[in-house]
């Protein structure tokens, strides 16, 4: 496989054999031409592993599904009360909708980070006993996070309808905004997975980072109302990569307006950048994982 140099097989009488050469190269990027097909060849494994993991966590039966709906709703209520107290009860009628939209997407993002961080260490047995491209493990966790995100969309739809908000074709703009968050999260998730191998307490720090990041992102406040104000603080909030992504998402789903195209481009830039860096950091180090575990 791939973490190694696999050269194309020669033709012998018995048909083509795989030809593997394992060399002393602990770090260094493996050849993408062999790595990517290896990874693609494991897509069914990724699906199956995600499905089995969810089932073993009871998320595929009725009460498990119910919990996936109740849990984010309760979380939304907690933050609603918090925001309500902090703002002395003054906020727009659609505030709850706006909060849920941002919160659900942010929860998806932060669970990508935390689940990816545990993906290598949590599968040490698999890492020590198989030659899987290691990227399979965080990718599976991202898929699991996505499958747990889906039911929250239903919650949002219900609240959205109950609050009597508008829908339109513009809603399709939510898809690129969502993809940006997913890709950006994936890139950071790969980095988290790598860091966790080297610093075993990394996942203890991560929740603080994600919580602070939540408050810095346009979840409990609206992007337009803050980042275009003068002052250093507003400027810094605008630098948060999640601001354009979650800002676009909120505009589309809550206000039914097309997102600022500049925001989408900016978000796409962050997403692609983080993804490329994350993938390279991870695959450059992944050969060392089995020695480090």
């Amino acid at each position, binding site marked *: 496989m791939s973490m190694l140099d696999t050269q194309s097989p020669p033709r012998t009488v018995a048909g083509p054999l795989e030809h*593997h050469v394992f*060399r002393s190269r602990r770090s260094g990027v493996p050849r993408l031409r062999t790595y990517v097909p290896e990874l693609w060849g494991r897509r069914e494994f990724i699906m199956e592993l995600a499905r*089995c993991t969810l089932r073993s966590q009871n998320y595929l039966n009725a009460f498990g599904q119910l919990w996936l709906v109740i849990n984010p709703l309760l979380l939304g209520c907690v933050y609603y009360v918090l925001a309500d107290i902090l703002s002395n009860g003054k906020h727009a009628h659609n505030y709850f909708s706006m909060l849920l939209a941002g919160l659900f997407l942010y929860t998806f993002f932060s669970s990508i980070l935390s689940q990816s961080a545990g993906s290598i260490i949590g599968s040490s*047995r698999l890492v020590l006993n198989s030659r899987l491209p290691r990227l399979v493990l965080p990718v599976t966790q991202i898929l699991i996070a996505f499958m747990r995100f889906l039911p929250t969309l239903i919650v949002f739809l219900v609240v959205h309808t109950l609050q009597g908000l508008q829908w339109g074709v513009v809603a399709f703009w939510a898809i690129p905004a969502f993809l940006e968050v997913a890709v950006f999260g994936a890139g950071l998730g790969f980095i988290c997975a790598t860091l966790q191998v080297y610093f075993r307490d990394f996942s203890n720090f991560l929740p603080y980072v994600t919580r602070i990041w939540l408050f810095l992102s346009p979840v409990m406040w609206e992007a337009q109302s803050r980042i275009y104000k003068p002052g250093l603080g507003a400027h810094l909030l605008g630098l948060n990569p999640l601001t354009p992504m979650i800002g676009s998402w909120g505009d589309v789903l809550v206000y039914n307006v097309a997102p600022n195209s500049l925001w989408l481009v900016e978000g796409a830039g962050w997403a692609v950048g983080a993804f490329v860096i994350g993938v390279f950091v991870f695959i450059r180090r992944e050969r060392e994982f089995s020695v480090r575990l």
Partner: protein
Amino acid sequence: MSVSDTTKIQVAERPAAPSAPEATGDPDFDLAIRVKDVKVDYRTIVNPRANTLRHTLTGFGRKTNDRKVRLIHAVRGVSFDVPHGSVLGIIGANGAGKSTIMRAMAGILPPSEGEIVVNGRISTLLALGVGFNGQLSGRDNVVLGSLAAGLTRRQVEERFEQITDWAELRDVIDLPMKAYSSGMYGRLAFGVSTHLDPDVLLVDEALSTGDAHFRKKSYDKMQELVARSRTIVIVSHGIGAIREMCDECIWMDKGQVVRRGKPDEVTAEYLEFQGVAPEKTTASDEAAEDDGADVDDMQMEDF
């Protein structure tokens, strides 16, 4: 170990590689496995707590010896070739580097020096199990194990019946694997790894949990693979198994090859070295003795 010196090797080797349509007498392609002067080191940090972010941050700038790594030389310069269709046994005391060299041949552990060439699809049956998850049913584990090895879903469906029938676990295949005995566990693992149609099968101490009936069955299955000119490497403490199965035997000690030759001679010498009177043991005698001897290896972990 830098990228640059590997590229040199690559360039030097290139001429013999892919474009040649017929095997050209190049041993790198004609042999099943070539292990060329391989060394494998593990790094362990002397202070286990030095492995944390907290420690790194609080100790920043301070001069400590904590992050010093101790290199453990598990395999120190081992070379051997295995031709297609042969069975190689590896014996040796605990900590001799047997399992490490197996992992290196499987491509899991990168060698620190040297090079390993393997021609063919590799299937492993390593001491810790195939990453099986005890919470999941036997069925899920078979499917996951096969998909992880790179089979497509269709291929898995084709082989599923064969595997469960071979392991004689049809009745319990939907129970969670934590309900299995270690023997059943070993049977399923062996069934999966041998039904993956491997060209090279690496078996690490996996025969010790089965009863006599399954030991016999495992031998037959391996003979069948060998008859189709598949290659097998076995690590075992069961001297009888080595004598019965192998064409050749390697005795490893402290990360080096001590002796290599006919299984009967090498195992006799090894037993003498171990201070055990060499007796005529056969595989079926051993079955009863070390049944369940490797309970430690059967612990399960979620993934």
